[in-house]
C-alpha cells in the first residue's frame, strides 16, 4: 500500500521552492527495506552529493527521485509539484498515470553508471532523440542544441560515431550531453564514474565540475570523495536507508560527528 507524505508547507515565494524536494521516501524490495524515510531539499543551482557504503540505498534513492523505482511512501516534488501524485478535478489526490510521470520525469536528466547509450544511434542521434520525440522540437533545432551540448562535454568531434567506438569516458560524456539536451531542471548522476578507469574518471568529473560551476542543479551519488568535497554545496551521508549525517562538505569531511561517517571516511583516507 502506498502512503502519501503530507504536502510541504505552502511556500511564500517561488524562490523558496526547492528545485527538488525529497520528502519521506521509503522503499522496500520484498522484506528488504532499502530506504527508511529520506528527506532533503535541493535548491536551484546547488549541488548535493550523496555518499555512503554500498547497499546504503544511494542508487535506489536516486532511482526513486525520477520514479524509475516507485517509492512505497513519501513523495518527490519538482518545483513544488508532486511527481507521483496529482489533484484531480474533484480536489482528490490520485497517483499519476505512467504517461503523466513520463511528462514529469523529462525535467530530470539522468546519467547512469553503465552509460546506457543507445547503440544503434550515433552520438548525435542519441542526443537529439528525446528532444525530437518528447519535446517535439524540430530536427534542425535539436541538432543545433545537441551540438552545443556535445561541445560542452568536448565531444563534438565524435558526433557521428556510434557508441561502441568510444572509450568509456567518452560514452559517459555523450550520456551527459544526451541528458543536457532535454534542458532538464536538474541532473541526477548515479555513480557516473564508478565503471571508469581513474584516467577516464577525471575527464568525466571535469565535465561535471564545469556543469556545477555553470549553476546546474545536481544530485550526485558518488564514491569520489574529493569531488563531493570540492564541488558540493551539501553532502548527505546515507547509512542503512537513513540520513546519518548531512551538511556542508567542510563540516562532513572536516569534522564528522557520527562514528559511522568517521569509519566510512577513514576507508577512503587509507
Amino acid at each position, binding site marked *: 500500500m502506498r502512503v502519501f507524505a503530507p504536502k510541504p508547507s505552502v511556500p511564500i515565494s517561488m524562490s523558496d521552492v526547492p528545485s527538488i524536494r525529497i520528502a519521506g521516501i521509503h522503499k522496500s524490495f520484498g522484506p528488504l527495506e532499502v530506504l527508511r524515510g529520506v528527506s532533503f531539499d535541493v535548491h536551484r543551482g546547488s549541488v548535493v552529493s550523496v555518499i555512503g557504503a554500498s547497499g546504503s540505498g544511494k542508487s535506489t534513492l536516486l532511482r526513486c527521485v*525520477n520514479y*524509475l523505482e516507485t517509492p512505497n511512501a513519501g513523495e518527490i516534488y519538482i518545483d513544488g509539484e508532486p511527481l507521483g501524485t496529482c489533484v484531480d478535478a474533484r480536489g482528490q489526490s490520485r497517483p499519476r498515470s*505512467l*504517461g503523466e510521470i*513520463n*511528462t514529469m*520525469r*523529462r525535467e*530530470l*536528466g*539522468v546519467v*547512469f553508471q*553503465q552509460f*546506457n*547509450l*543507445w*547503440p*544503434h544511434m550515433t552520438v548525435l542521434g542519441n542526443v537529439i*532523440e*528525446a528532444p525530437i*520525440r*518528447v*519535446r517535439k522540437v524540430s530536427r534542425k533545432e535539436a541538432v543545433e542544441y545537441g551540438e552545443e551540448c556535445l561541445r560542452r562535454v568536448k565531444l563534438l568531434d565524435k558526433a557521428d560515431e*556510434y*557508441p*561502441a*567506438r568510444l572509450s568509456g569516458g567518452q560514452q559517459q560524456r555523450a*550520456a551527459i550531453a*544526451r*541528458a543536457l539536451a*532535454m534542458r532538464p531542471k536538474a541532473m541526477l548522476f548515479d555513480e557516473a564514474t564508478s565503471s571508469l578507469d581513474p584516467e577516464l574518471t577525471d575527464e568525466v568529473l571535469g565535465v561535471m565540475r564545469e556543469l556545477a560551476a555553470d549553476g546546474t542543479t545536481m544530485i550526485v551519488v558518488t564514491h569520489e570523495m574529493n569531488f563531493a568535497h570540492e564541488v558540493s554545496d551539501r553532502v548527505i551521508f546515507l547509512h542503512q536507508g537513513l540520513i546519518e549525517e548531512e551538511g556542508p562538505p567542510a563540516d562532513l569531511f572536516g569534522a564528522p560527528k557520527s562514528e559511522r561517517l568517521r569509519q566510512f571516511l577513514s576507508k577512503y583516507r587509507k
Partner: protein
Amino acid sequence: MGNWERLVWNQRDVLLAGFVVTVEVCAIAFAAAIIGGLMLCLMRLYVPPLRLVAIVLIEFFRDTPIFVQLMWVAYVWPEVFGFPNSFFNAGWLALALQSSGYLAETFRAGIEAVPSGQREAAFSAGMSQAQTFTRIVVPQVALATAPSIVNQFTVIVKSSTLISVITVPDLMSQSQKLVNVWYEPIEILTATAAIYIAFVFAISLAGKLLADRLRQRYGLAAS
C-alpha cells in the same frame, strides 16, 4: 561430359523453372514466418490473456516434424478450415508455420536481451512505452537477430525440398521428374544438390557479411 550436357545442361529450362518455384515458395514462406513469428512473440510477451495460446502454438509448430505439418496443412486443413486451396499455398504455409515458431523464440530472446538500462534511459528522458519499444527496443532486436533470421531462411530452403511430395513443381520435384524420364540419377541429382548448396551458401554468406557489418558498425554481439 556427354551425359552432363544431355541430362543437365539441355534440361536447364526445366530445372530453372523448378528453382524459380523454390525461390517463390521460400520467399513467401519467409515473409509470412517473420510476420507470424512477430505476432506470436508479441502475444507471448505483451498480451497476457493470449500468452498460453502463443506458447502452445509456438511449441506445436516447433515440435511437429515438418513433413507431418506439410501433410497436415495440405490434406487436413482444406477439409477442416476450407483452405489452403492449392498445394503451392499449402507448401509455403506449412514452411511458414514451422519457421514462425522458431522466429517467435528468436525475437523473444532478442527483446529480453536488450538491457533494462536501455529502456530506463528512454523512460528517464520522458519517452513513452510505445516510443521506447519502437525507437529503442525494436531496432536493437532487429540488429541482434538479423543473422539468426537470415539463417532461418536457409532452414526454409532446405525444408522446402519436401513440398515436392505434395506435387508442388519445385526444383526437387522437377529434378525427380527428369530422373524418372531418363533413369539417370547421378548427373541430375548431383546438379540439383549443387544448386541447393550454392543457394544456401549464398544466403549464409549474406548472413555472415551482415553480422560482420553490424558488429563492426554498432559493436553489437550479433548471434
